[in-house]
């Protein structure tokens, strides 16, 4: 994602705030969970600014390995992890700062006249839709597929980070043909052979997903045995082996 998506009412307001404040000599703190787009928003305000991790910058200032006064504006991420925040900010007194944090920090409120909190993606449906669409378009382009969002379980437990991962992973999995699956398996087996895995262990890798999907698709063991052309006693044994007695 190259820019902050502002489709929901809340995000539009936030974007408006940062646009007004971008020209003012005030520090801004952006809070929100991991992956909500804090850094992207910071870049909207100061597109040319250098970005530092708060804790690393604190260490660099302490060890005198950075000439901080050369900067007029800075983006500082994860400022909540800085140990001595007041002293840290005192070193940056003449610099315009856009800081990001995962939590609200009360002891440095005075240094940030503008505070913006970005809600999690689950509360920003319109944004989620657009962001997901952008990710799926990009994934389809890379994997040369034509997957739609309806085919994908979107994981937003870590907002944009898990969302992107779930979309790319699902698109990749949907794009594989049998030859590529073989290649993937060979790659896996090649790595695991040295770990004293047995024939049975590798068989498990193939059989568990096969039986799992067959269970969902065919519902009864009779149907499963018929469709897979497998002896019912063998099927029962395998189900018990992989899923225990509660395999029904």
């Amino acid at each position: 994602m190259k820019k902050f998506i502002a489709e929901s009412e809340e995000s539009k307001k936030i974007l408006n705030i940062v646009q007004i404040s971008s020209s003012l000599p005030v520090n801004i703190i952006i809070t929100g969970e991991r992956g909500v787009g804090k850094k992207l928003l910071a870049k909207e305000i100061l597109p040319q600014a250098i970005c530092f991790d708060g804790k690393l910058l604190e260490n660099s200032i302490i060890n005198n390995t950075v000439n901080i006064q050369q900067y007029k504006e800075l983006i500082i991420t994860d400022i909540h992890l800085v140990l001595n925040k007041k002293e840290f900010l005192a070193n940056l007194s003449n610099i315009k700062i856009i800081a990001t944090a995962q939590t609200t920090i009360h002891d440095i409120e005075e240094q940030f006249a503008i505070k913006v909190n970005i809600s999690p993606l689950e509360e920003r449906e319109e944004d989620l839709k657009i962001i997901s669409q952008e990710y799926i378009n990009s994934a389809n382009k890379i994997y040369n597929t034509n997957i739609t969002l309806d085919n994908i379980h979107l994981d937003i437990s870590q907002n944009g980070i898990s969302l992107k991962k779930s979309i790319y992973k699902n698109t990749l999995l949907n794009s594989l043909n049998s030859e590529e699956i073989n290649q993937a398996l060979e790659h896996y087996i090649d790595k695991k052979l040295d770990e004293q895995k047995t024939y049975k262990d590798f068989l498990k890798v193939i059989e568990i997903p096969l039986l799992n999907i067959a269970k969902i698709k065919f519902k009864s063991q009779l149907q499963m045995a018929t469709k897979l052309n497998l002896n019912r006693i063998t099927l029962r044994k395998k189900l018990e082996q992989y899923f225990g007695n509660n395999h029904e």
Partner: protein
Amino acid sequence: MNNFYEKLLEHDLNPYFIFNANGKILKFNKEAEFLLNYVSIKELFNLAVDNASQDFGFSQKFIPLKFNKHEYYAILVGYTSDDEIALRLYKVVSNQTNTINSDKLKLVNIFSLIELSKNTTLLNSNLKIKEVYDISLPEMKININEFLLCLNECFKYFIEDDEITLKVKMKVGEYEVIDNQKYKIMSLLFSANRMVKGDHTLEEKANRSNVNIFFSQNSIKLELPIIL
């Protein structure tokens, strides 16, 4: 000789007023003129009448008074006829003078700051704001960071209300003296449909941003010098 007494009083650090029977000011000195920025004529007249002696004469009372930053420890009220009454207030002496750190002042449009503070503080609030703005106000020099913190606190104060009115205007005929220079005054009046009461955090933030703050009945008023 009379002229000399008048000049003496004119330069006195303690303000004085002479009212007629209807509460209209007949005479006052420089200090009294500044005091009128923070307190109404009616309030001062009532103060004089309420504390006047029963018969003609002069009476001193030690009562602590505070009008914005100005503190007084006593008053003198006197009248020798039914036509005039005089009020003199005795200032608590302080070495503090009104100064401002001009290094931190930046020229800015006040309405941008109000918009910014409103949007930031009320992002998820349902508060409706009726805006009555004098848009002819010029850009002025403000300590933006401190003023925004003060404004944020004002909006936060009303965050649970349904509706407030915000009036922004330049005060006519009133000035503030900072570093011996006279400045016009801009006021921001937040009015609600309920009583408001003093708020220590808000007062502190106002003081830090060189803003005078007044709490009265259902409103909070911020006043700041227009430094161009």
